[in-house]
């Protein structure tokens, strides 16, 4: 792609296409290429390889400022709220997170707070069995707050330090469903005044520009602390994370790259940018 010695119009076209197709967004893509073009005119870049390197560096830098304290490093008791739109991977990721944190010395409990969707509780219970994790569940149709309270309370009673709360998928356009989320933190505090709360937005890497609106709304509703980017094992690049981080200051905490329990890892921004250019 950039092995040609000459930097010409087709280089810029290819770079624009590559960035655009990664879902980085049109204004960001055009702005980045424009900036690289200026550097070429100013003679600081001379070859396609140099142009690509300059772009890579800029992208790495734009994500590098994020240094979230990951769940495994947080002291004290934790309540992790897993939120996001329908089908993004919350339930699967809740299970992955449970296994991941146990391997790092934490003790976990899963809360089946999706009391709405068909077999959502069953789904989490299967994962609970597979990971040897207790699952606190309510009745189908029961109140989200009640399950959260019971789970946080149970963890405290059983001496477990981490509660992972799997919530129902919801489109951010549904105000009543978003309002339902907004009471989560208060409920958890009632059950355990000393619990540290983290809300993570589970975002599908195949999502396009709508990701920014999703992140905005979930940030407003439940003060999301970070993103878990799922399904990066597909061909989508997840370029929306640049806008989400730059405009909302929401960093990526973890990445889901498959359907197995072990397919979860901390976000590596260097590897992520390198994958963009593949």
């Amino acid at each position, binding site marked *: 792609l950039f092995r040609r010695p000459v930097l010409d119009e087709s280089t810029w076209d290819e770079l624009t296409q590559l960035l*655009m197709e990664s879902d980085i967004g049109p*204004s960001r893509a055009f702005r980045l290429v424009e900036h690289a073009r200026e550097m070429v005119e100013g003679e600081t870049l001379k070859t396609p390889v140099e142009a690509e390197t300059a772009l890579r560096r800029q992208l790495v830098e734009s994500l590098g400022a994020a240094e979230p304290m990951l769940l495994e490093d947080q002291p004290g008791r934790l309540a992790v709220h897993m939120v996001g*739109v*329908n*089908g993004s991977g919350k339930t699967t990721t809740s299970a992955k997170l449970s296994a991941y944190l146990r391997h790092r010395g934490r003790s976990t409990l899963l809360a089946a707070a999706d009391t709405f969707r068909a*077999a959502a509780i069953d*789904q989490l*219970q299967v994962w609970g069995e597979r990971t040897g994790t207790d699952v606190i569940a309510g009745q189908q149709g029961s109140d989200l707050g009640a399950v959260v309270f019971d789970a946080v309370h149970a963890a405290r009673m059983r001496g477990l330090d981490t509660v992972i709360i799997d919530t129902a998928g919801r489109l951010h356009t549904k105000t009543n469903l978003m309002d339902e989320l907004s009471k989560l933190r208060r409920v958890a505090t009632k059950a355990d005044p000393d619990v540290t709360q983290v809300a993570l937005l589970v975002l599908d890497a195949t*999502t396009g520009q709508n990701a920014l609106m999703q992140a905005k709304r979930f940030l407003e509703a439940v003060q999301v602390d970070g993103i878990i980017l799922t399904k990066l094992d597909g*061909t989508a690049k997840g370029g929306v994370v640049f806008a989400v981080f730059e405009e909302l200051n929401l960093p990526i905490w973890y990445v889901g790259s498959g359907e197995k329990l072990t397919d979860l890892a901390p976000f590596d921004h260097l590897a992520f940018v390198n994958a963009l250019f593949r």
Partner: protein
Amino acid sequence: NLTDRLTSIFSGLRSKGALTEQDVEEAMREVRMSLLEADVNFRVVKDFVARVKERSIGGDVLQSLTPAQQVVKIVHEELVALLGDAAPLRLDGQPPAVIMLAGLQGSGKTTTAAKLALLLRKQKQLPLLVAADTYRPAAVDQLVYLGKQLDVPVYSEGTSSKPPVIVANALREARTAGRTVVILDTAGRLHVDNAMMEELREIGALSRPSETLLVADAMTGQDAVRVAEQFHESVSLTGLILTKVDGDARGGAALSIRQVTGVPIKFLGTSEKPDGLETFHPDRLAQRILG
């Protein structure tokens, strides 16, 4: 929105006198931005804008008193033309007709299967749902639960049998029980997972569906093209169902998929409920993509 942006561009250019081809190029940049922001694929946008430019230059835009409106009108017409008309479900051949649902993980296949079953029953068909996803935890339970809710029979063999075997047995059962339509809910899979795509081909080969529908999320970004191309190559899609249209994603993926595979858009998923399935209207979807 696009009309406003074009209006301000043209009013700025108007002051110099008559509009030129160069001015149209400026307007095309706005159209391009708007469609890219709507998640229409980069290459699809290139071709699309080239067509719009041609029509804009050849048409009345240069002489129009309202060039912005003219351009938007052309864009809208081209979108509608590309999206095509809504197409009904094809249930031809010896009963039971088979509808196979396929797509990426989490796109809405299982929920859509139930929605289709309800729709078909309302159309006096006798649907049978088939739980052919043995991979996802409680996927079978999910479909069984939905079937019970709707009082539609579900064929399942738990997770111990392989999906092609389940489908073959389900077809036999459907013939015996006189069901007229069989709806296959398959596991979500990646278009780059060769083994899973081979499984889908196998299921298609033995069930000979009259409809092979790609179930795709309305919020899908640029990758929609690649996904649709691969699925189409593997199992010859006959239609598209776009889900989660009740969100606020512009839905450009629909345009990309349509352009690249040529398959008609059959339905839109507009809620999580079993009645949340609507026929697609090209005019409305074009409006939404335009923003």
